[in-house]
C-alpha cells in the first residue's frame, strides 16, 4: 500500500535532496569526467587530444586487459557464490545460537577491522616459497613435491589470492545474520511441532525469508569482485606475468603512468560490466524475489 497525497511530495523531495546533492557532486560529475577523459589521450599536464573510442578498441586487443577481465569474472563468481555461500552457512549456524556465538560473531568480523596491509603481509609470509609456513608444513609431513612458490607460479597464484579472500566472510555474514535474526521464532516452533528437522527448517523457512538479503549481499559481493584491487595489489601486483591482474590493477598502473585517458577507459569498462552484471542478476537469481525491484 502506497500512501498518496500531494502533501507528501514536499517531504519526498526534502528527504531526497541531501542525497541527490551529494550524489550529483561525488558520482555524477566524476563519472562524467571519467567518460569524457576516456575519449582523450591525456597525460594530465599537456593539451588533451581527442581519440574517440581508440582506447576501448586497443584495450580489447590487449592480452593483459582481456586476462584481467577474465580474472574479474573469476572474482565475481568466487565472491558471489563461494563467499556468500559460506557467509550464509555460518550465519545460519550462528543464528541457532550455539555456545559462544556472540564471541564467534565478533571474531569472524575482526579481520575487517584490521588493515588489509597487515593481513596481506601475513599471507605473503604463509605462501612464501622459502620460509613460508605452508611449504614448511608440507615438507614436515613428507609432501615436498606439493610445495610451491604459491604466489609466483601461473597455476597457484590466482587461487592463492582467492582462497585468502573468500574465507573472510565477516561482513556479509553479519548482514545475513542480522536478517536471519529478524525471522520470528514462532515460525520455527510451528515447524518443530510438525516434525521438520533442522535442514528442512532452514530450507523451507530461513532461505525463503532471507532471499532478498541474499540477493542484495550477492550483488554487492559481485560488485566487489569487479572492483577487486587491494588484496591483489598487496600480494602480487598482478604477477606473475599478469596472471593475477584485474582491471583495478590495470587502472592503477595506467594512472601511475600518467595515461589518464586509458585509465578512464578502464573505469568506464568496469562500470559498464557492472551494469551488465546487474541486469543479469535481475533476470536470473533476482527474479521473483522482491529484491529484483532494486534493479528494474
Amino acid at each position: 500500500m502506497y500512501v498518496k497525497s500531494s502533501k507528501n511530495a514536499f517531504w519526498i523531495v526534502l528527504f531526497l535532496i541531501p542525497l541527490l546533492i551529494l550524489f550529483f557532486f561525488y558520482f555524477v560529475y566524476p563519472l562524467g569526467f571519467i567518460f569524457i577523459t576516456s575519449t582523450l589521450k591525456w597525460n594530465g599536464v599537456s593539451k588533451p587530444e581527442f581519440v574517440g573510442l581508440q582506447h576501448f578498441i586497443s584495450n580489447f586487443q590487449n592480452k593483459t586487459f582481456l586476462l584481467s577481465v577474465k580474472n574479474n569474472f573469476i572474482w565475481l563468481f568466487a565472491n558471489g557464490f563461494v563467499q556468500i555461500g559460506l557467509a550464509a552457512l555460518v550465519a545460519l549456524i550462528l543464528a541457532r545460537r550455539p555456545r559462544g556465538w556472540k564471541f564467534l560473531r565478533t571474531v569472524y568480523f575482526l579481520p575487517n577491522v584490521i588493515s588489509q596491509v597487515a593481513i596481506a603481509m601475513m599471507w605473503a609470509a604463509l605462501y612464501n616459497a622459502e620460509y613460508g609456513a605452508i611449504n614448511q608444513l608440507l615438507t614436515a609431513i613428507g609432501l615436498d613435491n606439493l610445495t610451491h612458490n604459491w604466489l609466483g607460479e601461473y597455476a597457484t597464484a590466482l587461487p592463492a589470492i582467492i582462497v585468502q579472500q573468500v574465507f573472510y566472510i565477516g561482513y556479509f555474514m553479519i548482514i545475513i545474520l542480522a536478517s536471519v535474526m529478524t525471522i520470528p521464532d514462532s515460525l520455527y516452533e510451528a515447524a518443530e511441532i510438525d516434525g521438520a528437522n533442522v535442514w528442512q527448517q532452514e530450507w523451507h523457512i530461513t532461505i525463503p525469508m532471507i532471499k532478498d538479503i541474499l540477493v542484495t549481499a550477492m550483488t554487492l559481493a559481485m560488485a566487489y569482485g569487479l572492483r577487486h584491487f587491494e588484496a591483489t595489489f598487496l600480494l602480487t601486483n598482478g604477477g606473475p606475468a599478469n596472471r593475477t591482474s584485474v582491471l583495478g590493477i590495470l587502472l592503477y598502473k595506467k594512472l601511475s603512468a600518467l595515461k589518464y585517458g586509458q585509465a578512464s577507459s578502464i573505469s568506464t569498462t568496469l562500470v559498464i560490466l557492472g551494469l551488465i552484471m546487474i541486469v543479469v542478476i535481475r533476470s536470473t537469481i533476482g527474479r521473483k524475489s522482491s529484491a529484483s525491484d532494486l534493479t528494474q
Partner: protein
Amino acid sequence: MSIVRTNGRGTTQVLGNTAKWVVLIFFFTFTFIPLLWLLISSFKTNLELQLKPFAMPEIWQFANYANAMKISGLPRLFLNSIIVSTVSTGLTMIVTSMAGFVFSRERFPFRQGLLNLILAGVLVPIIALMAPYFRLTNSLGIYDSLWALIFTYTAINIPISTFLLYGFMRTLPRELEEAAIMDGTGFVGRYWRIILPLTKPGMVTAGTFVFLFSWNEFIYAMLLTSRPAVRTLQLGIRFFTSQFFTDYTSMFAAIVLTMLPTIVIYIVLHEQIIKGMTSGALKG
C-alpha cells in the same frame, strides 16, 4: 526463546553438531590467526619478521610500541579519525535512511530510475576518482579541512548504505504503517517513529561498514589534506613506510594500538543490534 531453535535430534544431531563445529572452528582459526600473528609480529625485529614469520620473537621488542607512541601528534590524529569517522557515519545514516525510507515506502516519478542510478554507484572504482575529487574539494573550498574527508566519505558510502537500508526497509510489513496512518501519524512520524526504529539492525550493519571504511581509508585522507592538524590515523601509521623500506614491526605495533578502539566500538555497536532486535516489534 533460544530453546526453540534447537539442533534436531538423534543421529542428525550428532552429525550436524560435528559438521557445525568443524565449520565454526575453521573460520575461527582463519580469522583469529591473523590477529594473533599481528600481535606477536609487533614484538619482533624486521629481519625476524621476514625470515621467521611464524616463530616467537627471540627478544620481545617493546621498543616497537615506544616507536608507535612516538608518531608525531598521535592524539590529534586519533581525535581527527574519530571525528571524521563518526560524523561521516552519522551523516551517511541520516541521508541514506531518509532516502531509503522514501524509496521503499513511497511511489513517485523517476523512483526506479533514480534508485538504479544511485545503486550503480556501488560499481564505481573509487580509486579512479582521485582527479575529480581533488578538483571538487578545491572548488568547494574545503581542501585541507576535516570537511573534505567527511563529505567524501559520506558521499562514497551513499550507494552501499542506500542499498542496504533500502533492502532492510522494504522487508518491513506495511501493516505497521497502516495502523499508524489510521492514528493520524504523518510522513515524518512514519519515518521517525515507525520505520527508523525497526531499521536499527540495518543501520548498525551499514553504519559499521561506513565507520570502518572511514577509519581505514588512506588514499583520500592523503589526497585531500596537507596540514598535520587535519590528518587522520592512517597517515600516522604510514610514518613507518619510507621510500626504500618499511619498518613493519613498528607499524604493526601502531596498528595494534589504533585497532583497539575500533574493536571496542564494534562490540558496543553490536550489542545495539541485539537490543534493537529484541525490542523490535517483529518478534513473534
